[in-house]
């Protein structure tokens, strides 16, 4: 599942755009070429407006892809996602650059996988969960969110995962507390061949530490500010053991042990 398909520019049409959680929308786009080639963990670079005021594209993971359709889960944060929330079915003003980046990798002989999602970190794990299920790999999902209303992709995970465990900060769904308490317990109780995680960077770091403690392979999807999305501008660098890497082409998914989290890398503040 590494990056092999050449990226392209594709015009997209909005098929539907619905609110699926507090502050979160699910955008379905007709994008046949992208739908046919995108792999789990890859992303698209979306041009939301044609005006220059918000100049840059915005990167979004593809949550699911089927037929001619790709799905994007987005959280309304700023100018770009506010505009996204207003898109109506039939809108043809957007285009994407994609498929971009290096996605999740499934190591040889994987039979048990743990997916750890925090908030919108569930987005890039959707396709992965589906493909692991198809491949007959037993998958457990640990998912956290501040409250029940902020949980996303519950149906998908329940459908394809062997088991899902939920934690919310306020206990309004699943157990009360952080998802890292769930993962600590799971990692202690079960043997996983690989852990996949995406969420707020503090959560990711905690999960990585737990995996390292137990010697479990872990892959992490990192978020960086991105201008070009194709490896040219060097705005998205991640410090790794083998030097500075670009999140947009060398990632966003990295082997956790490769990444040197340090003070010079400040994740986007939301």
């Amino acid at each position: 599942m590494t990056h092999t398909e050449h990226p392209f520019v594709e015009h997209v049409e909005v098929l539907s755009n619905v609110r699926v959680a507090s502050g979160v929308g699910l955008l379905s786009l007709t994008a046949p070429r992208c739908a046919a080639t995108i792999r789990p963990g890859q992303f698209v670079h979306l041009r939301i407006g044609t005006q220059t005021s918000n100049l840059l594209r915005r990167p979004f993971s593809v949550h699911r892809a089927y037929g001619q359709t790709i799905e994007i889960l987005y959280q309304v944060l700023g100018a770009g996602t506010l505009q996204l929330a207003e898109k109506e079915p039939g809108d043809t003003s957007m285009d994407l650059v994609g498929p971009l980046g290096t996605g999740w990798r499934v190591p040889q002989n994987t039979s048990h996988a743990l997916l750890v999602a925090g908030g919108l970190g569930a987005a890039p794990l959707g396709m992965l969960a589906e493909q692991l299920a198809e491949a007959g790999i037993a998958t457990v999902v640990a998912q956290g969110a501040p409250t029940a209303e902020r949980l996303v992709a519950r149906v998908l995970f329940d459908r394809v995962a062997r088991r899902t465990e939920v934690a919310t900060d306020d206990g309004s769904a699943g157990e009360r507390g952080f998802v890292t308490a769930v993962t600590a317990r799971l990692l202690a109780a079960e043997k996983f061949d690989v852990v996949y995680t995406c969420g707020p960077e503090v959560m990711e770091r905690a999960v990585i530490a737990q995996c390292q403690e137990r010697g479990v392979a872990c892959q992490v999807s990192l978020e960086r500010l991105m201008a070009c999305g194709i490896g040219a501008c060097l705005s998205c660098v991640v410090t790794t053991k083998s030097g500075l890497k670009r999140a947009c082409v060398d990632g966003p998914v990295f082997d956790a042990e490769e990444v040197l989290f340090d003070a010079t890398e400040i994740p986007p503040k939301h």
Partner: protein
Amino acid sequence: MTVDLTVNLGSLPLKNPVMTASGTFASGREFSDFVDLTRLGAIVTKGVSMTPWPGNASPRIAETASGMLNSIGLQNPGVEAFIEGDLAWLSTNASSTPVIVNVSGHSAADYARVIERLETQDSVAAYELNISCPNVDTGGMAFGTSSTAAAEVVRECRSATNRPLIIKLSPNVTDIVEIARTVEAEGADAVSLINTLLGMAIDANTRRPMLSRVVGGLSGPAIKPVALRMVWQVACALDIPIIGMGGIMTAEDAIEFLIAGATCVAVGTGNFIDPTTTMKVIDGIDEWCRSHGVEQVTDLVGSLEVSW
């Protein structure tokens, strides 16, 4: 009607006036999925220094109204890695397109050393000296904001090469014409206008700068009026050709720069918004010339009519 798009950048003939702006196109490889590199007038590489530079801490970019700030800080693997990597790739994959190497340094001697190292490389067509990067502490913009310092860099580099020497000037100066005249007098073959404007963005909620380096370089459509003004001022005063850049997103933008007096244009931030921008600009210039009865693109250069 066919339009003659060829231009001469001093002694360097180009098949059309559209180039890439340094640092926004890497060395072209990343764009080869979107762009036929052999159609470009020239490829200007990202900044290359003698030794590897790590660049600045993240965050390195921020979006602003019709523009963006960057403080990448000339991250690059150094001239040796450049020769073996990007330059080798380019001479295999885009040999018909002139490669202009953008050169960085912390001192005048630094620039000259990079050039000396590249003199043996046949696939280098010209050098562009970046004396205007606002994102490095030593050198960079400091060379481009003082005539004395600019002169020194050009002098050292001039004596290191006979290849065309292009000087990329900083817009963060009181008198762009004075600096341009100075580098012309020192033997520059062309000037590039403009590098980014020094700017800053703040996140009110966190009371922190959006860039870890606090300040960065402003590029994109927001700066086009400043860029056009400087191109026009310098074109009125100098004889050497100008590469115009700053906010070019469309063919019409490019044509405005030609009319203002630029012989060539470069697409920078526009590459991020649409990776095929350079191709659209080339096609658009051709089309525009056709529909306006312009037979040679050089007829546009400096054709601004200022009498009302």
